């Protein structure tokens, strides 16, 4: 007998800065995906040139929602070194699994 176990993962890859001006829209989009049944997310930050604390708050919101629904959120490191260092400083790299590529993040589910 062949069994197949498929895990649905939504990959979100913002291409611009995430700050207080656009973070509410991103939060709403992610929570709508969660309302639609998505529980596992990869948020690929590799092309994000700048992220403020509002953006970080969105990541925490969707993490809490995903874990509450039995799923999880994995991050992909920003390519900008200074942005990576902020995720170290706030210990986000301990709260989230963070990988170098979206493919590597998918393998963690």
């Amino acid at each position: 007998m062949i069994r197949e176990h498929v895990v649905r993962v939504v990959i979100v890859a913002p291409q611009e800065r995430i700050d207080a001006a656009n973070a509410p829209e991103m939060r709403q989009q992610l929570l709508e995906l969660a309302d639609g049944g998505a529980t596992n997310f990869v948020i690929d930050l590799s092309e994000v040139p700048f992220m403020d604390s509002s953006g970080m708050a969105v990541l925490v919101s969707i993490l809490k929602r995903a874990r509450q629904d039995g799923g999880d959120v994995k991050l992909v490191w920003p390519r900008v070194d200074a942005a990576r260092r902020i995720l170290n400083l706030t210990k986000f790299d301990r709260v989230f699994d963070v990988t170098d590529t979206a493919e590597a993040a998918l393998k963690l589910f």
Partner: protein
Amino acid sequence: MAAERTQELLVPATFSAVRAIDAAIVDLLTQAGADEFTVYNVQLAAHEVCTNIVEHAYAGRDDGTIAARLRVTQAPHSAIEIELRDQGQPFDPQSVPAPELDQPQEGGYGLFLAQALLDELHYQHDAQGNLWRLRKRL
């Protein structure tokens, strides 16, 4: 010795308009030859103070402004000094406890980051309103 550079901006206190202050800081620091970490960190620190002004000092008001004065000094050492002025409600330092970094939270990182990324962050309230002074050696 390179000349001192100063720039002044007056922007509406909205989340999108404060991006003009971010951009001016990036330009000034890039011209001053600062490394990429300094450029990013000072931009982020000032941005967090500005969004704090929009969200808390001017909470619920859409007619506020932020006056920014950016200055790269050479003596006694190379540094960037940023003054951010607003006429909103006074800031209450008690209202922002330091974040618990071991527990992910949805807020409270802003001023923690500003403080961590700068050499100096001062706040005062006077007859002209609120004044934040930021300083980072280059």
